[in-house]
């Protein structure tokens, strides 16, 4: 490095130093320690005791853990693609000028910024089996609605359905992506006689594929660690633990049972699953993402 370069290096580093310290203390240290604690007996009150692979062996035999993992993956597999599709469709509907467009956009977006705790309360009430608004609405079209939160078969669908309400964030990103698609593409497609469906598949989807990828990855990361709604709407996992989510079980293990070593082993598993899914999705669709100018 020349003298000028060296000076710039230290200046730059000085500016980012708050983050470097923060990353070491609140990012790197906890991850390393979580990995270490996963091999320990640890309850925060006493020092951690190294016990080897015992926590991991216990995980293999913990039926509750596998149930929680199954519930979470079930939720993710349905809610993530469903959320993506709904967000993209809304964005397409809103993309071209329409009367009251900014109001519509605002109304779609509102649910994704309000406190999740309050949202959970509202859903508890709307999905109430006896006097809930949803079952009343269903009864108007002749459907006898299930007891959503008390029936093991319906707890996960309840959480999936209520998740669709919060697609606003993804929708705004799609909308921004759609605004960048040149109108000329659609015009020439129209001249060639391509219908709306064809235009959607051959122009819209490829052009916003980077946004689809981004939303997909974020959706996976967040759905695997989903905690607030299941924790509040289904305390202790609901009937037959059918709505026990992985993050909720992890939280209970760590802070209710104070079994922090075991919870750390679960945390490692969660981290591994997120990395694996992110990697798999990237491998799977990477070649189909269209980057402009690339």
């Amino acid at each position: 490095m020349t003298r000028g370069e060296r000076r710039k290096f230290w200046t730059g580093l000085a500016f980012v130093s708050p983050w470097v310290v923060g990353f070491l203390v609140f990012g790197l240290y906890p991850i390393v320690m979580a990995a270490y604690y996963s091999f320990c007996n640890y309850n925060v009150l006493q020092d951690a005791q190294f016990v080897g692979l015992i926590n991991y062996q216990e995980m293999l035999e913990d039926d509750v853990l596998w149930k929680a993992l199954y519930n979470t993956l079930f939720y993710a597999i349905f809610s993530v693609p469903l959320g993506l599709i709904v967000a993209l469709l809304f964005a397409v509907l809103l993309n071209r000028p329409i009367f009251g467009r900014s109001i519509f956009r605002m109304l779609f977006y509102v649910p994704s910024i309000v406190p999740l705790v309050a949202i959970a309360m509202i859903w508890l009430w709307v999905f109430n089996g006896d006097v809930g608004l949803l079952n009343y609405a269903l009864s108007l079209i002749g459907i006898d609605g299930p007891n959503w939160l008390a029936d093991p078969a319906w707890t996960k669908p309840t959480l999936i359905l209520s998740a669709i309400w919060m697609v606003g964030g993804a929708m705004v990103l799609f909308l921004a992506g759609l605004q960048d698609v040149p109108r000329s593409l659609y015009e020439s497609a129209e001249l060639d006689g391509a219908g709306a469906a064809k235009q959607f598949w051959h122009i819209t989807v490829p052009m916003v594929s980077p946004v689809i990828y981004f939303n997909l990855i974020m959706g996976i990361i967040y759905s695997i660690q989903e905690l607030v709604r299941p924790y509040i709407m289904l305390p202790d996992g609901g009937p037959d633990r059918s709505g026990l989510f992985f993050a909720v079980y992890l939280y209970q293990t760590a802070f209710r049972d104070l079994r922090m070593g075991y919870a750390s082993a679960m945390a490692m598993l969660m981290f591994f699953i997120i990395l694996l899914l992110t990697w798999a999705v990237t491998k799977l669709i990477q070649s189909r993402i269209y980057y402009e100018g690339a």
Partner: protein
Amino acid sequence: MPRFGFQATRLILMIVICGVFITPLLWMVSTSLKPLDQTMQMPPRWLPYEWQATIDGQLVAVDLKDSEAVVKAGGPIKVEVAEGPSKGEPHTLDASQLQRKIAPQWGNYKEAVHEMREFPRYLRNSLILCTLTVIGTVLSCSIVAYGFSRVEWKGRNTLFLVVLATMMIPFPVTMVPLYGLFRELGFIGSLKPLWVPTFFGTAFNIFLLRQFFMTIPRDLSEAARIDGCSEFMIFIKIILPLAKPAVTVVALFQFLYAWNDFLGPLIYLTDQKDFTLALGLQFFQSQQGGTQWHYLMAASALVLLPVLLLFFFTQRTFIEGVSMSGLKA
């Protein structure tokens, strides 16, 4: 013209979907203004009401004492006066003398605040937390983002990839060691674990500000450098004033994050007096066992309302900010 038909269909579709989207919030408000018995009425009514009748030449609210079904059937009904000096006075009236009047129970909000016990404390804690984290985030993230965008140095882009990667670390993975760390520091049972880290920058906000700083022309900094300005002065005097819209977005995001956060307060706060509104709301719900829906919805509305107000006044800035956060990386 098919074009016009298409437009009309699209508009109707949008209105229907938006109606469905906004219904849960309207239902919350509706429930929050009803007396308890009306919250569980089937079929439900959207508007809260009371029964009124003219007794001794005066129009007063009356209590039907669970004989509402008789009103439809007609015939004499035993009622009690529900307000005024003759409260509790029994009367027998004919169904035709009764009329239904819209009567929102604004008092539910006062009751909900009372039932939550520490509501003023919760509100105070939430506001303190929001203020501190907004200050911390704006200060730290703008400085850090400057280092990642306006100064050229070796290793900068590699380190920035690490910043982006930290966004993918799930909180449940780090929460156990973080709890241990904050316990060692004596932070547990105070708001400190929730605001101290924000003074060291948060990845998402650093990213957002960096994106914005990159769009400011280089020449501005170069000219100042030739005039002998230090990097820090350039940051303070030139870049920061230009970045006001982006800084506002970051402040808004952080405010919402702190206001809405549940898991952090759940883990770190031990004393009810230290709870934030989000945690206080859940505590209230778990305590009362979920039967007083009118109070629960009123309390939820009170937690929601500041967010809604903030959003309505800043929505343009807001949505631009969200759009900015997408990609282009």
